[in-house]
């Protein structure tokens, strides 16, 4: 009953003309961003964040979320037409999507991707709507030790899944924690890591770091290669973009598989849409009667990962809105956006801001319908954005980044910091340091330190408070186990190598 009331209130908010407009702007921008290789949703949301300060929080959140899930729709277009994934989550779509396009079935592949995205995206929002409120109620019992343990668990999961090297992911997280610590300590008024600069007393603005790491880092990485890929022509006309009935029949399990796996993986902090899409593709292939044909252009190979990729969005918003724990770089920026607008994401977020939560949920249903309508007939139009020359696109991104940072503080010093973080973002890409853990460390660092210090104040300095409370103990134990699992894997590799050498 509560869900129905909430949803009807949410629909009243989402259907307001201004919010419908911002939802439309968000999904169109998201689709364009998803289509363009080299510009991801975190960079776009970070760049646009300063411009949302003049908007109502509901409209701004609806637009930014639209960019987030809209990019998932657009990401498949380049995978299918160029064999270049627009987003990392669309890598798997290349396997069968591009093969379908090469066989002259680009239209059907794009159509299946759009339909799977719609079905699974809607299931993901349904899951968010049903799971988030009870989880938030459960988390109301949390105090400082549980919060600290929860953040430690979130960071532990993220660093494991964020890249190829656990060491580098952990180091990136610690750098994020350090950046979060720059400025005046709120407990003691001590200035920390300010290098004697007045500008750093209030800390480093999140927007500066996010735009530098994501937007500038991406532009610099893309500047390395001047050439652009050639795309397969997009068939014109709606009839050529609709899959056949047989295609849809073949994909019926893939729609369910993608929806369920995507949502469940999304709820886990750190897993992310890339893992969801790979997992869903793997399951689809494992249970298929024609698994040997996967990779040669089967529609299920497009439907499963595209569905999972979209359903993951709803799942990822669950820990963000109910626990204040983001699971990826994009959700970390959405978390920072909520904090900048004056909200406190966590167990009290839904009870204290029902209009914002339900408005967002309702807008996501509407946004998914908009995306289906936009993506089926208008894919050829959207694909034209790929013809925008890189020498026009990249200066524009640099310009929006500079304006975005200058808008926040009006300070040239922050633009200097932006340069530094841009270079850091590029070097991180070059040296294979994942950037999401740094952003998560930055976003969670302040709250994590606060929770730890409040816990220790409660216990008069005794660390046992962190393990004396059952929920906190379980979460910390899980965090430790997650960090230790790869070490066991490494130990096993060494053991096997030693046995081989002994045997040899």
């Amino acid at each position, binding site marked *: 009953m509560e869900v129905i009331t909430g949803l009807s209130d949410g629909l009243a908010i989402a259907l307001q003309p201004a919010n419908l407009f911002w939802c439309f702007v968000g999904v169109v921008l998201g689709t364009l961003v998803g289509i363009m290789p080299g510009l991801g949703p975190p960079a776009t949301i970070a760049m646009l964040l300063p411009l949302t300060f003049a908007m109502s929080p509901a409209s701004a959140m609806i637009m930014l979320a639209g960019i987030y899930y809209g990019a998932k729709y657009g990401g498949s277009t380049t995978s299918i037409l160029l064999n270049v994934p627009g987003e990392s989550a669309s890598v798997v779509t290349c396997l069968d999507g591009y093969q379908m396009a090469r066989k002259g079935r680009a239209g059907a592949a794009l159509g299946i991707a759009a339909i799977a995205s719609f079905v699974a995206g809607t299931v993901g929002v349904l899951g968010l709507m049903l799971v988030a409120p009870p989880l938030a109620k459960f988390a109301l019992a949390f105090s400082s030790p549980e919060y600290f343990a929860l953040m430690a668990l979130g960071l532990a999961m993220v660093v494991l899944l964020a890249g190829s090297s656990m060491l580098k992911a952990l180091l990136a997280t610690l750098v994020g924690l*350090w950046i979060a610590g720059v400025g005046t300590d709120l407990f003691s008024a001590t200035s920390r*890591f300010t290098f004697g600069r007045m500008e750093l007393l209030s800390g480093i603005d999140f927007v500066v770091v996010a735009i530098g790491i994501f937007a500038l880092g991406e532009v610099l990485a893309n500047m390395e290669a001047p050439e652009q890929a050639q795309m397969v022509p997009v068939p014109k006309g709606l009839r050529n973009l609709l899959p056949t009935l047989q295609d849809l029949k073949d994909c019926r399990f893939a729609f369910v598989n993608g929806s369920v796996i995507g949502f469940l993986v999304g709820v886990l902090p750190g897993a992310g849409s890339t893992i969801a899409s790979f997992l869903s593709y793997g399951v689809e292939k494992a249970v298929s009667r024609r698994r040997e044909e996967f990779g040669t252009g089967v529609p299920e190979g497009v439907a499963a990962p595209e569905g999972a990729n979209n359903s993951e969005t709803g799942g990822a918003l669950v820990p963000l809105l109910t626990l204040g724990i983001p699971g990826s770089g994009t959700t970390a920026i959405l978390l920072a956006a909520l904090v900048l607008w004056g909200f406190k994401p966590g167990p009290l977020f839904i009870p204290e801001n029902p209009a914002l939560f339900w408005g967002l949920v309702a807008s996501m249903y509407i946004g998914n319908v908009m995306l289906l309508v936009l993506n089926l007939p208008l894919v050829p139009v959207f694909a034209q954005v790929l013809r925008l020359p890189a020498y*026009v696109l990249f200066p524009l991104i*640099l*310009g929006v980044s500079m304006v975005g940072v200058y808008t926040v503080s009006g300070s040239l010093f922050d633009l200097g910091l932006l*340069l530094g973080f841009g270079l850091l973002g590029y070097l991180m890409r070059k*040296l294979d*340091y994942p950037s999401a853990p740094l952003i998560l460390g930055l976003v969670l660092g302040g709250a994590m*330190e606060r929770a730890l*210090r409040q816990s220790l104040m409660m216990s008069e300095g005794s660390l046992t408070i962190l393990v004396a409370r059952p929920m906190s103990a379980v979460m910390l134990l899980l965090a430790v186990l997650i960090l230790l699992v790869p070490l066991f894997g490494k130990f096993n590799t060494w053991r096997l190598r030693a046995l081989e050498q002994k045997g040899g």
Partner: protein
Amino acid sequence: MQDRTRNLGDLWSGLVLAALAIYIIAQALQWDYLTPEGPGPGFFPLWYGMAMLALSAALVVSELRRRSARGTAINWTPLGRALSTWLALAASVALLKPLGFVISFALLTYFIVAVMYRRPLKTAALVAAASSGGFFLVFQLALGVSLPVGFLGF
């Protein structure tokens, strides 16, 4: 090529991070670790500083042990392109105060189009003028965002 870049990069990044960790620890030791009310400002940084030192040392050691592996030369061309763009951006930021956003951004765009992408000078001038003019119209005039102003008043 990429592997070689990463091997050297891992070593140097490990050393830089170790230096950062030592700085964090040295700073944290100057602040209160525990106060009568609870942990002081040095408590949290000391712990993550020590963790950073341990992890960066592990990265350096693992790289030194692997350095015997042969690698190919670093390809400086893509690195040079990216760093040239960064330097151009840095110059553009430095010029914001005397020249203002419109002119310094036009110069940056001109450099990217003409030098980095080797397009005809006419095309570069057109793209530079159109994009910086577009920014002025959209942000300064339409959205009321104040952009850095130079000696010419815009």
